[in-house]
Each structure stands twice: as C-alpha cells, then as structure tokens.
C-alpha cells in the first residue's frame, strides 16, 4: 500500500477536459473522492474497532470485578473468657501469646451461639457449623486484638468480623440456596440466619477498603485477600523499571541512531535489540534467576530483582520506539544546530531529543504497561504464589523484602478454586487498570507539551 498503486495509474477514464467548472466535480475526481472517503472510513472503522474492543474488555472487567470492592461483615459480641486466654490471670504477654488461633475458635463459637439465641432464630446447626458464617480469619483477628490490648481479657468485646466468602457471595447474589445444596462449606440454613441478622443490622455489606490495602490471604479465606501489598510490590518494581529502562533505553537509542558508526558491531547491537523484543518473557525469568539470584546473590522474590528482569524486557520496546522517533526528526534541525557550533551531543540533547519526545513517551508507556501486566518472568524469580503478608518496613525493604506484584496476584487468584477469588482477580485488574490510566494520563499531558509539526 505504500507504493503508488498501479491500478488507476494508467486509467481508462481520462481527466475531464480543461475548463470544466469547479462547481461540478468531474467523474475522476468523484471517484478519487470516493476512495478518499473510503480511506477515511477505514480509519474511523479501525479506530472504532479498537475502541469497541476496549469497551468490550472494560465491560467484562468491570462487570466481573466491581463486586470485589464491597465486602460483608458480621458484628459480633465475643466474650474474651479469662479461663481460655489467660489461665494464670497475670496478663503476661508471653503467655497470652502462647494461645494460638485454635484457642480462640471456641470463643467465637460461643459468641455465635449466643447471637443465635439473642436474635431468636430457630436453627438446627451445631455450634461448630455456625462458624462457617465467618471467615476463618476471625480467630486471628480476635487474637491480634487481644495481643495488642491484653486488658480486654475478661470483657465482652464487640468486634466486626469478616463474613465467609459464601455468605458474602450470597449477599452479592453469587450464591443461591439451590447451589448450596451440594456445598459442604455452607448450608441453606446459614442463610436464614444471615437474612435475620441482616434485618437486624448485624450483617452488612460495605465498601471494601481492605481489598485495596490488604495483603493476599490463603486459599481458605478469599474474603480477607487484598491487593494492597502487591500493589506496593508493583510500584517498587515499576520504579526500578522506570529509573533504569527509560534512561538506558534512551541512551542506547541515541547512541545507535546519532553516534554509532555504521559497522558490524552496531548492526549486531541493532539486530540484537529487535531480537530481544521477541524473546518470550519467561526466558527473561530464566535469565533473571541465573544472573540476579544465583550469580549476584540478590534476594529471592524481591521487587528489585523483578524490576531488573522487567527492565531487560522493556528495554527493546523503548529502544525501538525511541529510535523510530529519533529517525523521524528531519536532518535539517541537526544541521542547523551543528552550523551554529553546537556539538553533536548538544544538537541531540537540545533539539532532537525534545522533538522525539512524543515517540519516546509512547514507547515508555507501552513498555511500562507491558511490564506492569507481566507475570511469566516473575514465576521464575519467586514473585508468584503466596508471598507477602506485610507491608515492607521502609524503602530499602520495599525493594528487597519478598513481595508479589499485581499481575502475579491476579494470575494467582484467577487460578484458585473458590469463585470469590475469581471476583477478586477481576477486581485486581480494575486496580491495575487504574494504575495504567494514571500512567497514561501523565504521558498524555507530557506528550501534549512536546507535540508539534514542522
């Protein structure tokens, strides 16, 4: 399509004789205008198709994932019995800490039975079965609270506990009574309780900040899982990627496009770079494992290593787009600068680079977007799985402490058995896209400043 089309070059329809009125469009022009309109229509159609796909994907993501942003909680009064938690009664933190979460389970059972009685709902469920209403994190929640404040022992505290994923699913309309018939995790009878408690205001669905700020949870308690820590992992990784790949990519492109002599070595580099773009991302994971962990002894599962691997992976994207846009800066600009006695370096940094900026930004956005959504290489350097449960304690820790990343977290959730994780996976994608949107927004603003035609 880039060559002058042979059809129409030597046409049968000769142009209209000279002197025809301008107000009447001649046949050939009409034909060409039709081609013009077609061409433009193709453009609009192409853009439309792209947008359509985007909308379809976004719709799929939103409709599947928005529910992850709400969560059900149960309000419970738990008696913190001294005989269970502090047999000696001396409030020695060390001894209190000896009571494991298993020791707290009976308290919760007790509280639930009390609640059933208090709300006067008839049920045949055994006390142990009642706990299925709550997340299995309930005991840990309670324990943390007691350890933080041993004075509570002996009192009855009112706590808000996460409802289990099935209960949450019921309140979100995902779980029906019929589907519970074969589900050993929850019975329809539980739902009667939930209905009653919901009317009493003891069970409610709220915006789920914990999803945005929390850490991953194990497979048995999807209701507790959050993406916050992984988000931080991604953030630190992206910092590494941005700090390394943008300068290195731009520097490499400048060298290749503006300074490098045309010789075998630079050809080799050039071919190599385009080739790296085609290397499957998991191979970068193999490389990262060998170089950064086994050879350089960097810590495993660390965002720093992830960032380094992703840097190598994004470099070709940035280099290829930067080179393309450097190439498109007209030589006269360079000549003008050289002519007033600027060095080549000055000509490039003062004139060529600003003009190439839109393309560089595009490459960076594409590269970072790709890096932000990449999972496969992280698989091999230990960032996929059940990784971080705490926020890093500082910036250095942020780079070095084991962490996951958003796409890895999403990938992990999408594989898990409980459908509640599936919903979270999509919710995680929404968070990821918000990240991406923010990045794009910055790029749009920057690009606007640099764009001009000459």
């Amino acid at each position, binding site marked *: 399509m880039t060559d002058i089309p042979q059809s129409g070059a030597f*046409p049968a329809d000769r*142009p209209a004789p000279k002197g025809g009125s301008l*107000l009447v469009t001649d046949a050939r022009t009409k034909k060409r205008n039709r081609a013009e309109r077609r061409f433009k229509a193709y453009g609009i159609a192409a853009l439309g198709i792209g947008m359509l796909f985007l909308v379809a994907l976004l719709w799929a993501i939103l409709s599947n994932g928005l529910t992850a942003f709400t969560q059900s909680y149960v309000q419970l009064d738990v008696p913190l019995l001294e005989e269970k938690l502090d047999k000696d009664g001396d409030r020695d933190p060390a001894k209190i800490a000896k009571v494991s979460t298993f020791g707290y389970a009976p308290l919760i059972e007790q509280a639930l039975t009390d609640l059933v009685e208090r709300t006067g709902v008839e049920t045949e469920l055994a006390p142990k079965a009642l706990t299925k209403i709550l997340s299995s994190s309930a005991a840990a929640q309670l324990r943390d609270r007691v350890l933080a404040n041993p004075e509570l022992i002996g009192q009855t505290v009112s706590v808000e506990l996460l409802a289990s994923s099935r209960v949450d699913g019921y309140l979100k309309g995902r779980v029906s009574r019929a589907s519970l018939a074969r589900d050993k995790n929850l019975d329809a009878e539980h739902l009667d309780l939930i209905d009653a408690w919901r009317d009493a205001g003891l069970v409610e669905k709220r915006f789920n900040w914990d999803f945005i700020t929390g850490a991953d949870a194990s497979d048995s308690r999807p209701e507790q899982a959050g993406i916050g820590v992984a988000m931080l992992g991604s953030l630190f990784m992206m910092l590494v990627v941005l700090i390394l790949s943008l300068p290195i990519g731009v520097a490499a492109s400048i060298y290749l496009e503006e300074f490098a002599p045309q010789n075998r070595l630079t050809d080799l580099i050039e071919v190599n770079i385009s080739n790296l773009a085609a290397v499957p991302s998991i191979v970068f994971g193999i490389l990262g494992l060998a170089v950064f962990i086994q050879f350089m002894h960097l810590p495993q599962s660390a965002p720093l290593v992830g960032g380094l691997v992703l840097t190598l992976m994004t470099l070709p994207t940035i280099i290829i787009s930067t080179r393309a846009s450097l190439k498109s800066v007209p030589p006269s600009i360079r000549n003008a600068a050289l002519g007033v006695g600027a060095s080549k370096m000055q000509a490039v940094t003062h004139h060529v680079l600003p003009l190439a900026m839109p393309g560089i930004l595009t490459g960076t956005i594409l590269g970072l977007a790709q890096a932000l959504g990449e999972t496969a290489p992280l698989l091999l350097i230990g960032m996929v799985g059940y990784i971080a449960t705490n926020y890093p304690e500082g910036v250095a820790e942020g780079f070095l402490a084991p962490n996951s990343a958003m796409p890895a977290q999403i990938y992990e959730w999408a594989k898990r058995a409980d459908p509640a994780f599936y919903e979270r996976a999509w919710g995680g994608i929404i968070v990821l896209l918000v990240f991406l949107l923010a990045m794009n927004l910055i790029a749009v603003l920057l690009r606007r400043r640099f764009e001009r035609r000459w």
Partner: protein
Amino acid sequence: MDNAVLNETKITARDVHVHYGTTHAIKGVDVDIADRTVTAFIGPSGCGKSTFLRCLNRMNDTIPGAVVTGEIKIDEADIYDPRVDPVQLRAKVGMVFQKPNPFPKSIYDNVAYGPKIHGLARNKAELDEIVEKALRRGAIWDEVKDRLHAPGTGLSGGQQQRLCIARAVATEPEILLMDEPCSALDPIATAQVEELIDELRQNFSVVIVTHSMQQAARVSQRTAFFHLGNLVEYGETGKIFTNPEDSRTESYISGRIG
C-alpha cells in the same frame, strides 16, 4: 517586455482577509487576475505574498490556525464554496512552493507523481514522455537524465527548485502559482524558467511571486504590489514600474537593487 494583451478575468478576489491566529496577514485584498497572463506579486519580505498566493488554491486550509475570509472566484466559481472540491481545485491550480520540497522519492517518481494520480498517462511510455517533457521544461533534464532514479532529496538547492517546477508543470494545471521559483537559480536557469513561464502564458495563467523587480518586469504583464498585508497597487507591469501611483510603490521600486 511584451505589450500585455488584456484577457478575460480568470481569478477574482474580493475583500480577502487572512489571519494566522492573532496575526492579520492579508487585509482586504481585491484583485482580478487575467487569463493567459503572467501576474507578478511583489513586495517586501513578510508582506503576505505567499499567504495570498496560497489562498488561491486553498493551500492555507492545511495550516492550523489560518483563517481565510472574503471571496475568491476562479472561472466564476467561488473556490471556498462547499461544493468545490479542493482536490479538483488544486489539480487546476498548480503550485510551486517557496521552499523546494521534493518528495523523498526518486527524481522520476517526484515528477510522475502528479500525472499518475490524475491519470494523465495511459501507459508507462506515455508517463516517461510526460516526465521527460516536464523535466525539460523545468530546465533540469540534462542534469538529471542519467540519475532519474536517484532520490530527489540528493539534489542541489537550485536543482530541487527546478525539480519542483517540473513536478508542478507535469500535471498541466490551468493556473500555475509560483512562489519565488527562481530564488535559488543561476541566471541561465532563471532564463530557462522565464522562457517556460512565457510559454505557459500562451494557454494558462501564471502568478509568480518574486522579489526581483527585473524579473517581474521581464516576465509579467501585470504586477501587484503588496505591503504589510495590503494590496497597495495593481496594474500593468509597465505602468507600475515606470509610473506608480502610490508613494509606497514608488519608494519600493526606486530602492531598486538586486
């Protein structure tokens, strides 16, 4: 200098204004350009000659921020009428730009481009012929006939300018707008281009922007003098150069130098 025969009017402009953003580049120009005549636009640099020239084939459409108002008619048809197709207009009104802008293609393709899109050649042989003729008229054939397939951007400044002239005449426009077509040419090449202009005048209108008053006097039958966006004076070339009415014209003419 010929005695200009007055032909019927080809282009009429009435109260044309052009704004580039806040710059008011053309301020109410009225002019009638005759058929089969060479009209010269002269005036100090930056007075709006190119701008007005570009109005005549709606090339100003492509400049973001350029706003043209007023009426311009070619052959009685208002070229800013929505029914007018700028493509057809530009096929009829050819243009040579002030800065030579050869395509990054071979010399041959540069010239063949217009004839191809307008379907002027039935076959390759005809096209070759058109290209050769255009290059000859552009006074550059001898210099490039051995390197027709070398890129047009590898030519010298003056060669590029002549290439662009050849490219413009290859499509046989009815009106040819030439913005300083000889600015980079030596006297001999200039003479050849002026000969071409004279030849074109037999059938077509030519509007030429030039800063060389000698050239204007040599090739044109009518001359328009622009100053600060105004058309100060317009009339027969002989009269303008010998007996200008406006004092500004006179003082411009009398500073006659290069």
